[in-house]
């Protein structure tokens, strides 16, 4: 059985384009939540988010990051493919991961395991339907659709990545809501471990920073209404809701021997993973955290890591009153007495909740401890909720050398995914 290692990573986040932008921002202990600029949110009850600093995701914006692909970018842009922000974010993050891993045409046998979004709609494509000239329903012929593309965003994102990288391996598109990103990486590691693929491009991308997605979330009532950059305060006594984010994190996961053979240096090892369902409610987590605890225990068991050997926990930590307490209970139950001294943090105060991509961006954040010996802080966490009885790292990152990290992703609908990463030998 092959060990799965991460040899490349890329990210797009509220800190900007690039993994370094994310890790540098976290290393500085900064937050990147601010006023929404990509659409007019002035009348919405919530007007701040962890928005990627670009108003329109055009080909021109992407070109400096993909300078050799101007023609493809122009074509996709003309087709409207980049109207959905999660697609260009995924492409940029994937291109960075691919480049950092040193992948090229020889890696085209790679598989693809991705999560794109948590919701069904693709209104950007449908907008033209409301323009009377957009559809030409010629009687007796196929409809003319000069400006209308009707696509599932699940497939669309995957298709762009498959075409750009020419991938020919197994494909899986994950739809496990906020656990999707973590499970996409876990799925990739599973493919590698059992020999179904030597190398897999994996991760997640999401953006709901458009009027409908954002409006739907506003109506759901899960967002903090503070409308300040420090609105999201995971595990803090004053927390009152999450803040939306957007972005992507993509990884190249491959068999360790495959990586070594082509001279790629592993950044981390995917040691274990597990999933579970709360089977409780669509709208709320199990208060006792029992199912998420099982996912953590399963991931540690698979990794062969004892709870007391965990060096750091990257919590799902949404900043909502119910979620944080349930997760804190689950972490404490999983780690036992060691919970007193194992640091825990959430990066959602800094970059917002990236929904389907949250598990992926948080695994990218876990490269901070594994490559720079820095544990990310919990931006805007000042006064720990006594019910979240853990060693919560405050706003500033903490220096520490750790060998293993546990990352939690607990999604809407009660789907839980946990991944354990370990330090790789140089």
């Amino acid at each position, binding site marked *: 059985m092959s060990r799965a290692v991460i040899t490349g990573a890329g990210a797009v986040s509220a800190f900007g384009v690039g993994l370094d932008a994310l890790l540098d921002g976290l290393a500085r202990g900064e937050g990147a939540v601010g006023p929404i600029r990509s659409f007019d949110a002035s009348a919405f009850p919530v007007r701040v988010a962890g928005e990627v600093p670009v108003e329109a995701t055009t080909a021109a914006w992407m070109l400096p990051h993909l300078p050799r692909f101007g023609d493809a970018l122009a074509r996709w842009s003309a087709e409207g493919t980049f109207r959905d922000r999660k697609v260009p974010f995924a492409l940029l993050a994937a291109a960075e991961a691919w480049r950092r891993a040193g992948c090229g045409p020889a890696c085209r046998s790679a598989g693809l395991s991705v999560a794109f979004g948590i919701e069904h*709609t693709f209104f950007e494509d449908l907008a033209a339907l409301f323009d009377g000239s957009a559809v030409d329903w010629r009687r007796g012929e*196929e409809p003319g659709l000069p400006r209308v593309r009707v696509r599932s965003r699940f497939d669309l994102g995957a298709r762009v990545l498959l075409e750009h990288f020419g991938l020919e391996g197994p494909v*899986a598109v994950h739809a496990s809501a906020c656990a999707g990103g973590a499970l996409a990486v876990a799925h990739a590691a599973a493919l590698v471990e059992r020999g179904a693929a030597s190398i897999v491009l994996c991760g997640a991308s999401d953006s709901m920073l458009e009027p409908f997605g954002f409006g739907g979330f506003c109506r759901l009532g899960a967002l903090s209404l503070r409308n300040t950059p420090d609105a999201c305060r995971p595990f803090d006594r004053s927390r009152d809701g999450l803040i939306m984010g957007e972005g992507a994190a993509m990884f190249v996961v491959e068999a360790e021997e495959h990586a070594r053979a082509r001279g790629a240096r592993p950044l981390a090892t995917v040691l274990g993973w597990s999933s579970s369902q*709360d089977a409780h*409610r669509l709208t709320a987590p199990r208060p006792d955290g029992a199912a998420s605890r099982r996912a953590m225990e399963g991931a540690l068991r698979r990794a062969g890591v004892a709870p007391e050997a965990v060096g750091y926990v990257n919590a799902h930590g949404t900043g909502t009153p119910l979620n944080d307490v349930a997760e804190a209970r689950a972490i404490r139950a999983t780690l036992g007495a060691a919970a007193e001294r194992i640091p825990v943090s959430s990066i959602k105060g800094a970059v917002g909740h990236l929904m389907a991509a949250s598990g992926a961006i948080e695994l990218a954040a876990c490269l901070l401890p594994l490559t720079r010996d820095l544990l990310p802080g919990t931006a805007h966490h000042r006064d720990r909720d006594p019910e979240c009885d853990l060693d919560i790292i405050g706003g500033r990152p903490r220096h520490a050398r750790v060998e293993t990290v546990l990352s939690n992703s607990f999604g809407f609908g009660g*789907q839980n995914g946990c991944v354990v990463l370990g330090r790789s030998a140089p």
Partner: protein
Amino acid sequence: MTAAVTGWALRTPLGGEAGAVCARLLAGERAAAPAPEGYVRDGRPICVVAAPPRDLRHRRFLPRLGLLAIEAAAEAFMASGAGGGDRLGLFSGCGGLRVDWDETLPALAGQRPDGAAAWALGLRGLHPFWLLRHLSNNVHALAATDHGARGEGSAFGGAGSGAQALQAAVRAIEAGAVDAALVLAHDSLLEAEAAVELAAGGAVATGALDALAAPYDLAAAGFVPGEAVAALVLEPVDRAGGRALARVDAAVVADGREGAPAGATLARALSRVARGERIIDGAGLANPALDAAERAALAGVTGADAILLALSSATGQLGAATPLVQVIALGALLRQGRLPPIAGLRRPAPGPLRPLAAAEPTGERAALAVSAGAPGVAGALRVEVP
């Protein structure tokens, strides 16, 4: 490397009970009917699940097909006798991620072209659960809650998601990660967005119903879009014992193509599960070039004289639900010892494999099936009955 199927249920355009569906398959019936007035293209043949959902508990969160999926899950779960809990896994596939227009149009109706003041002009009127109704894993989550499925699980999206879910469940059973797994898939190729896209791509049959040609027919000119939901309960073979309705193995591969996978990719998937079976249910895309390539490639795995079925000739193309419907239909047919004809097959196109034009008895206990989904995803499965 197989799992036992101990419960199954389906809702298809041919009916909502496996025995009844098989009877209509064996009779060579087609579910295709002219699209009603007001549909994307009036009169075009489509295959619709006619029965409305009976269990409406989750109607606030789920549209019609989601409710049918919940219903099928409950039926399969009850039939299996499996119990909920920490060792019950749940794996689901949802192909058609579509807008619920009834819920959405009121919020769109008053919008300005430039999107300004979108909140005041309609979005603030969205139901608080509007987002949950569009959540990609809402069926998965509610099925988990209904049956106490707290074990491992994943939800997949896209056209190949049913095959992904089935494969993931079989592997979870094999690995001992769960004692039982509920597998769900639902998809519709009939909703407005899918219908527009399929029509624009020229993949669907456009002629009158009486001229409709079957897959693998010389006159094949596109498939009939359909919709379905299906649910399976899988358990380890030794645990299932005499309760097993069938045994199943599944594989999924891909080739990076934008549309349907190449014939060679279907064959690659098939080779992962084939053990010398002589019956295969084809992808049946009713595209002469794709059909010919598929037959040539599959024959390389099964031999040229294997029997070729096309359940989709009767049900329409079922998207992500296809693999689960194949398991149920093939399992039930093998248990009866009868194979159905390719519905509407009049002039079989020449080529390897033997397209079945009339129902016939069989003594075979196992059969194969393939399914094709974009982007370039090929599913294959093997069904064996006791």
